[in-house]
């Protein structure tokens, strides 16, 4: 059973602003039937160019309904420019949190709002669904731009989290590698900017082991998990790190390359440049 907080349940059981506005200034639709959720948002501006009325209709679970409902309250009285800045994280915060697997419900809310605003700008009447960028996940029709957005806004570092937030990778799974590349690209940028701080020169042995452990669990493991594998740190002897591959990795013919290109490269980058990684012998 999902652990919904009181606020989520309250907005699900007593949704505010449910319905549809006739002759709206903006209409946005987001989601799809295949995914099991769909949100239609309509709004009307007042004389002061602020959102005077906004209503939603949702086909979806409790968190989809609650996210949509609380978002309508958040945008009421805002200008278009202010409303545009609302992110899925703002919606989640306002709700006091959502289960991790339900984050995509809040993303749907944000996207419907953006679609409604785009619709207002491009002309009234017809609902639009934007499809910016290149489709990465064909099962759920998610583009690279959408994936990048959730990664940056929610500080995501695993494919699994991306799936929780925007569904990409949750169907056949064939795009998981591509999602990982997007994560790597964004993280690469972020880490470079933070590198100066995370690279203490003199490490005690204990600090080194801790850093190796952290690098393996944060940098290496998510990569291997995306391919059904895993890795365990067995021992550290001086600058020699001994690891064991698990799951799919243990039978993988390219494990040797993974060892050099991924494990060793990451450890050299984040711990010290003279690290040697070896696989545990049977």
């Amino acid at each position, binding site marked *: 059973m999902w652990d919904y907080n009181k606020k989520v349940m309250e907005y699900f059981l007593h949704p505010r602003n449910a319905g549809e506005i006739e002759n709206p200034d903006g209409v946005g639709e987001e989601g799809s039937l295949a995914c099991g959720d769909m949100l239609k948002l309509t709004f009307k501006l007042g004389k002061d160019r602020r959102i005077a009325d906004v209503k939603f209709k949702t086909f979806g679970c409790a968190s989809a309904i609650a996210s949509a409902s609380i978002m309508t309250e958040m945008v009421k009285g805002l200008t278009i420019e202010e409303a545009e800045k609302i992110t899925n994280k703002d919606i989640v915060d306002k709700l006091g949190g959502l289960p991790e697997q339900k984050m995509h419900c809040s993303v749907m809310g944000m996207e419907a709002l953006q679609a409604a605003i785009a619709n207002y700008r491009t002309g009234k009447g017809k609902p639009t669904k934007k499809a910016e960028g290149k489709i990465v996940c064909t099962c*759920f029709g998610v583009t690279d731009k959408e994936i990048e957005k959730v990664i940056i806004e929610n500080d995501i570092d695993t494919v699994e989290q991306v799936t929780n937030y925007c569904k990409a990778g949750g169907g056949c799974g064939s795009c998981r590698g591509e999602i990982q590349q997007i994560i790597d690209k964004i993280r690469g940028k972020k880490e470079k900017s933070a590198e100066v701080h995370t690279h203490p020169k003199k490490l005690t042995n204990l600090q080194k082991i801790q850093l190796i452990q952290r690098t393996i669990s944060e940098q290496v493991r998510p990569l291997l998990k995306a391919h059904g594998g895993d890795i365990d740190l067995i021992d550290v002897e001086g600058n020699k790190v001994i690891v064991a591959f698990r799951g799919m990795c243990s039978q993988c013919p390219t494990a040797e390359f993974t060892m050099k290109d991924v494990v060793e490269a990451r450890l050299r980058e984040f711990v010290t440049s003279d690290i040697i990684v070896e696989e545990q012998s049977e």
Partner: protein
Amino acid sequence: MAKVIYFDNNATTQVAPEVLDAMLPFLKDLYGNPSSMHTFGGQVEKYIRQSRESIAGLLGCDSSEIVFTGCGTESDNAAIKGVLAAMPEKRKIITTRVEHPAVLTTCREIQAQGYKMIELGVDKYGQINLGELEAEVDDDTALVTIMYANNETGVIFPIDKIAEIVKAKDVVFHTDAVQAVGKIPLNLNKSNIDLLSLSGHKLHAPKGVGVLYIKKGTRISPFIVGGHQEKSRRAGTENVAGIVALGKAAELAAKSIQQENTKVKKLRDKLESTILKTCTGAMLNGDKINRLPNTTNISFEFIEGEAILLLLDQFGICASSGSACTSGSLEPSHVMRAMGVPFTAAHGSIRFSLSIYNTEDEVDFVIEKMPQVVNRLRELSPFVNER
């Protein structure tokens, strides 16, 4: 706790009061280990024997063919992996797309190890094509595993016919009968079923005990090894209280099975036909004729299952759903998808599963609440344009 209307008996059942009474002494004074040499422990053995007899009575088999396990999932794992281990030269396994995860995940794991796995599809009634099955069973096939009755829809496969087809090709046949045992009469002596899994908590025994029926002469390697318990077919100190409980539950089931097919079926039919009439966009999933007497699976178009369940929960009504949202996955139930139920309906599928402990008053209460739950969510749905 507030009033609970428990219509989720395919998930688990309440422990029968008689079963609780029967098992309690083994959690108190009679705590001995049946393998011990002393009388205090050894005396427990005869209660295990009695339980074995009761279960054999319910299944229509010999008590020596009953192996106690920890749960239905363990029985499925033991059957599938045990048969494959006993005949390593055969590399193919046949199952269906609508199996319980206990079977499906096990088979897929084996497939990842290089086995050929055939998943037979089903039609819109949830039935497989027997001709297709017959064509797939060949010399390389180690095992055919097909469930007796589906947990989500209650659809019953023609297991005797299936077992006959498989036996004619001299291949081992296993069936996951977790949902069938206690609800429909079985007679294993007269069938060609080689292996059958059942689970205690689905028939009013507690969780943590199951059975694997192994027909005499079936080649199978043990799944859990260690001590000599269960004639070395399943090692581990016996869950004596659980085993005694399951024996008592089997005795009770043998007596109440008639009621399942009269009283329970009547309640289910009333619930189902009324909901289909009074709720907008409601449709039945599965095979109306060949199915368990206690189960109904109804889809409510354009609304979502988790939302339905949470609103029912407000009234203390317990049911379950094949919606993606209830599972934490992003796709609706694999059973609904295999039957080709449209997405608009698959996400709104609700399963009600009754037991002999349910009453007509409870059915009437659910019948009263259901239309308002459905209408409330339909009002929120962007797919519905009423007025």
